[in-house]
């Protein structure tokens, strides 16, 4: 398999602190209302205590990206060297087709630039041998950068409950499921 960088979302370690989300904003200063990385609480049907287990999600840098396939102006490319899906904003005409088509809501419409934008996996940092801003920021290593080509899968899953199962796009993100303590309550 070719090198494919991916985010590993370890919900067993994730404390839902939003540090990753703010680290992204700190680095890219997105316009108001635009969120590249969001921390989603799991519904109580999945983790029985409200807002106590989370998925931190940005672009999944899919094997077969919907955004890339539906973009009428070829504004998306997938880097061969590491599988990062890059949105070239100056080519974008702001048609919104990627936004409608990405099942994970990764591309967002920037009302100021009037173009789409999304998580770049900090490819400019990857190219300088640095981690993405969010990964570097995570205080518990719950968010990690992995290469799917080198992943020896143990307890990582691709489609946990709470994450849309979209095999056609084959998202790269992998998950480790949250655990629960023994509860002694009155």
């Amino acid at each position, binding site marked *: 398999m070719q090198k494919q960088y991916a985010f590993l979302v370890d919900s067993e370690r994730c404390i839902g*602190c939003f540090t990753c989300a703010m680290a992204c904003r700190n680095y890219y200063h997105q316009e108001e209302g635009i969120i590249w990385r969001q921390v989603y609480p799991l519904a109580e049907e999945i983790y029985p205590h409200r807002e106590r287990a989370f998925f931190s999600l940005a672009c999944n840098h899919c094997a077969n990206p919907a955004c890339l396939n539906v973009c009428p102006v070829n504004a998306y490319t997938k880097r061969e060297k590491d599988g990062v899906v890059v949105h070239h904003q100056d080519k974008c005409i702001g048609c919104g087709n990627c936004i409608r088509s990405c099942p994970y809501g990764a591309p967002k419409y920037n009302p100021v630039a009037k173009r789409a934008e999304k998580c770049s996996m900090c490819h400019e940092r990857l190219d300088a041998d640095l981690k993405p801003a969010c990964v570097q920021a995570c205080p518990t290593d719950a968010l990690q950068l992995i290469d799917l080509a080198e992943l020896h899968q143990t307890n990582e899953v691709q489609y946990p409950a709470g994450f849309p199962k979209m095999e056609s796009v084959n998202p790269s993100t992998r998950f480790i499921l949250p655990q629960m303590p023994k509860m002694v309550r009155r």
Partner: protein
Amino acid sequence: MTMKQTYNRRQFLKGLAAVGATALLPCRFLVPMNAEAAAFNEAEFTIFRNACPRNCYDTCSIKTYVKDGVIQFIEGAPESTYTDGGLCVKGYSYTRRPYSPDRIKYPMMQDGRRSGKWRRVSWDEALDRIAKKILELKEKDGNLLGMGMTKYSGNFGITNYGVEGMMSSLGYTTRFVGTPCWPAGIDAQNYDMGNMWCNDPEDMAKAKYIIVWGANPAWCSVHSMKYIMEAKRRGAKIVVIDPVFTQTAAKGDVYWQPKTSTDGALALGMAKHILDSGLVNQDFVNNYSYGFEDFANYLNANVTVEWAAEQTGIPAKDIKEVAEEFATADPATIWIGYGMQRHTNGGASVRSIDALVAMTGNIGKEGGGARYGQLQTWGFNYHALIQKQPEGSKGFVGNAAKGEFDFTNGTEAQYSDRTVNINKTAQVILDTKDPAIKMLWVSCKNPFAQDFDRPKLEKAFDTLEMVVTVDQFFNETVANSDIVLPVTTLFEEWTVNVSYWHYWLSINEQAIKPMHEAKSNIEIAAALSQKMNALSPGSCTFPQDIDTKEWMAKEFNKDIYSYFGIADWTELRNGPVKAKLKTSAAWPDHKFDTPSGKYEFKSELCEKNGHNALPAFKERRKHYAAFRLLTPHTKFGIHSQFINLDWMQEYDKEPFVYMHPNAAAKKGIADQDMVRVFNKVGEQRVRVKLTDNVSEDCLLMYEAWFGKGNTFNVQNLVDDESADMGAFKAGAPGVAIHDQFADIERI
């Protein structure tokens, strides 16, 4: 810009087809095939060292990347193994803070409190008004005790003690001392061990058993979580005890939800079982402790596990199991949170928990310890703090109380400042006479968001003739002020920072020029001094021309240098440094600072100060309304800071009250309903979220100030009842923030 092309055959063919189809369209060729950003290059930035000055365990070391005089982004200093290259959600929002459109930009005066009629004035005009008022008070009263100063933890940068220094340089004033934060526990640890001193938090990874008791590091000390997780990975058991199923609890092995404020009974029940099981560490209690026999007798006479189970709601078999595991694990540690001592029995509870750690021989051990906090790293010169009163100043006759961060030696002066309880701000302003407090200086603090009984506070402020607030945002305290002075953010001043938890030292460089007309606290003091001396020569001793970098340098001394293993503060420009600790354990040689030199299960000093000599059980505060009300910290802020920033509100849009679904059903309340939470203090309208993270008898709302357009304030519901301890070391008793009660109804 790089033009790297990542082409494969398929894309190439597609490209050809596209070119073919659009060869006639000229714009096709105006667009590059690839518009990828160039690789990150650190050389494009000027890098500065900063440190988060908030009242937080983590006190993170920050690396600030500046280009063209503007902060581009920040990150955690990689040199600190504690910060480890990352900040927290609050820390990363700093990039926005100096540039926030909501910032106070100039000195301003308000025509009528809470009128919102602010007008811009010059620094000269503002200081002229202030200085004349100070002189008027002195003239009328013959002293300056009518001027009050309230300041706490809004900025813990050491040079910010210049606010206290400025007050001293004017004369003897009225100081609000004490702390709403952690004083009951400080006293407790002082009675037991002679000081508050915790192990290096990084050594928690070595623990075989960790009890996190009333602390929520997943929200309030995110960088500590990795050590707890590492201990867990190495096989340690993590027990979290909290009335709320917190995020930290969700990461543990066992979660206990005792009745709120029954922690003392729980610890004593565990202690009794350890005693009964013969698991007491005889070496420690025989050689390094005082009064263990009395404690054992107390336990035998008054405590059973079944009684503890009854008191706390935790089943006896669980109490026994965890007590045995804790006593046999080596090392085992307890992290005592500040939340669990904000009760009328908080100090007593901390003493009981200390006893549990001590009797199992875990004090003085790496990976062990009764962890609460430390001030070992705070040995600065306090140059900015120590200023001399003007010649002939008159003040209070008697001894002033001192705060927990006051490291100065007492003087034998004839007069002193008048000290009043910071936790009863409203009552104190209303009650203090001869002279009454007529003018108040507020800095590094937002009393309207943090001081208790807000309705009463508003009445109290209305009796003041002048309120001057130094701040960055138009918060509720500013709304209740006459004059506001804009203060610098951490990026705009020089200072130095340490933690009360970890052992790292960080410099805070001026990374950008102050925005607008902001001045640092010591620059404000210097400017005021200029004005005072112009109007009345000799009326203020504060230096009139200062350099914040020089003043920062003046905070260092030989002891600090040797403790941290540096020759000069300039070395800190290469990154933070950690204290050169011989061991990560506190009290490694078991020599305690108590009167007996031993760990004191029985403390005569404690008894002398009006408490029980033993870590005995103390009843909790009686309910005064149907539900217990808890108002702890949110993960999106520290007290009233950060939550108002537009960047933060992307992720945290509005406040909620959290309520158990069963309790809500009885009240006909549904998820997301608007409700009214009310008690004898006041009321707060807010939306409700239903969750079993809280118990059925509990309401939970997070302390916050959301900024303009939102009046949410938990202090509408918190009275100023004192905690049992705190007066000994912090100057005033703590406050029973979590011993509050309220009722709720749908609106």
